[in-house]
């Protein structure tokens, strides 16, 4: 920590010089200045310690582990160069998880379009608006494990989905989580169900912050709803839209909870994070898992960087 050298001074309470302690007035302002300099560090000591311990130290360690064959427990480890990275990109079973991400990426596209649609229609005058808004948003707040169970029952043989289909005269004995394609589609669908609400509320907030006069003026000019959407709403929510795209991409790549809880990664539903967790904590391949995590981190940082380049965000100058 930056303030370790100054630590002994902490023992003295109060910043003011003790009378009689200093015969000459010169040391007093110096001491006060020292305290003034120290003050922000006193406030930052704990936050910085946590930040370094739980964000930066792990990143540094992770990069270091990724070049070794460490198993996570034994004191012995060997430097193996880029072997882990080569293994990651050449072993097809390790590489397959990226195809699973494809399902989640496609699902996020559906999700963004649907969220945009509902945000747009609910920004106009609609009856029971708050009810619909609440219903669409609520899934986002629900515990992931509970969602997992709700949808395990939903896709169960004779569960909710089969019963609903039976109502419409369609009797299927399709095992929804039985084949990789069907299982991944189902799981990605659950993600849409879960995360649609956040996108929707973000879009709605952005749409509602567009000044109402713009709509009125456009109506006078003879614009219809589609024109309004295309020329007023879409440009107005562009920053939020790009943010959502980034969140969706990194969310799709780091999908974990829903597939892990529902299938445990069976029947070809293993995602990148499930694989990494299994490598690290079940098969004790800390080195290989670290390499995988580094790759994921780099991809996500690259996507974020790309977004910042493509859409200069004026809110970045926060600090």
């Amino acid at each position, binding site marked *: 920590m930056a303030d370790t050298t100054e630590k002994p001074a902490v023992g003295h309470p109060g*910043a003011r010089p003790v009378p009689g302690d200093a015969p000459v007035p010169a040391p007093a302002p110096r001491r006060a200045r020292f305290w003034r300099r120290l003050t*922000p*560090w*006193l*406030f*930052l000591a704990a*936050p910085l310690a*946590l*930040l370094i311990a739980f*964000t*930066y*130290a*792990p990143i540094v*360690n*992770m990069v270091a582990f990724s070049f070794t064959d460490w198993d996570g427990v034994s004191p012995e480890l060997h430097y193996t160069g880029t072997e882990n990275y080569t293994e990651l990109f050449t072993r097809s079973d390790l590489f397959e998880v990226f195809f699973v991400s494809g399902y989640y990426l496609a699902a996020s596209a559906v999700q963004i379009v649907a969220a945009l649609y*509902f945000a747009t*229609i*609910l920004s106009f005058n609609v*009856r029971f608006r708050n*009810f*619909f808004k609440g*219903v*669409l948003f*609520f899934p*986002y*707040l629900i*515990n*992931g*494990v*509970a969602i997992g*169970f709700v949808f395990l*029952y*939903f896709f169960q043989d004779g*569960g*909710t989905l*089969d*019963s*609903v289909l039976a109502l419409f005269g369609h009797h299927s004995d399709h095992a929804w989580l039985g084949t990789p394609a069907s299982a991944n589609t189902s799981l990605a669908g659950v993600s849409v*169900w879960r995360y649609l609400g*956040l996108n929707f*509320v*973000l879009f709605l*907030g952005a749409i509602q912050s567009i000044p109402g006069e713009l709509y009125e003026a456009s109506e006078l000019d003879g614009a219809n709803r589609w024109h309004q959407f295309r020329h007023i709403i879409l440009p107005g929510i562009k920053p939020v839209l790009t*943010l959502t795209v980034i*969140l969706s991409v990194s969310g799709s790549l*780091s999908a*974990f*909870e829903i597939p892990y809880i529902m299938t445990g990664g069976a029947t070809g539903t293993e995602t990148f*994070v499930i694989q990494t967790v299994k490598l690290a*904590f079940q098969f004790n391949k*800390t080195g290989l*898992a*670290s390499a995988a*995590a580094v790759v994921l*981190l780099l991809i*996500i*940082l690259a996507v*974020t960087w790309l977004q910042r380049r493509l859409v200069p965000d004026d*809110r970045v100058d926060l*600090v």
Partner: protein
Amino acid sequence: MTRRAAARTLTYLSLVLASLVVLLPLGVVVLTSLKTDEELADDSGALTLPDDPLNFHNYVTAFQDGRMLAAFGHTAFILLFSVGGTVLIGSMTAYAIDRFTFRFRKLVVALFLLAALVPGVTTQVATFQIVNSLGMFDTLWAPIALYMGTDIVSIYIFLQFVRSIPVSLDESARLDGANAFTVYRKIIFPLLKPAIATVVIVKGITVYNDFYIPFLYMPSQDLGVISTSLFRFKGPFGAHWETISAGAVLVILPTLIVFLALQKYIYNGFMKGATR
């Protein structure tokens, strides 16, 4: 005119359909939680009503055999410390960054900014070793420390808010002889109330729902939080969907109550949190 009416009908139709898609899976689980295992076995389908709508037997089973009481206790403990800690840490950081000029200030700001881009799931492999070496593995302190230490979003929220508090308030207090700590405690912190409310709500819901961190760091059966305890229903209650459903409803119910009571703050909070 008829085209307008048709468009309106379609709009409402799509909204009703979407509401059904959201509510049906949840509603069926509530129905299932009220059925007996014989009712579930008789193949009458998932949409039938339970014979006795006041059959809370499954809830008792879930609550007792699923150790839900201990789970709620652990979650409450973690919530108290991690949310309290997040508020303190976030507001202190924001105060120091916004109100002081000091050497390396830019570096500190950059460190926090950059950390916001690193998704927590990616670094757990190495975080695990650090938590382990600090002796916090398999204790309630592991999630508390991680929730406190890796929340950059609340620092953002506090920072925006501290900036909106006029510096003249600090200065007049300073003239009255208050030191930096008194200014923080007596002036900044009380004025941060709306930001604190936002952070408490967003952080509280996130911590309540988190599965990944307690799952990784507290594997022992006696340290279940609501997520991990519910997850463990999968084993002993295997095909007992009535008990699993009751457990899920027990977990969802507090969220529903909080949501209904604090709707406005929740929308605002998540909006601020995501767009930072």
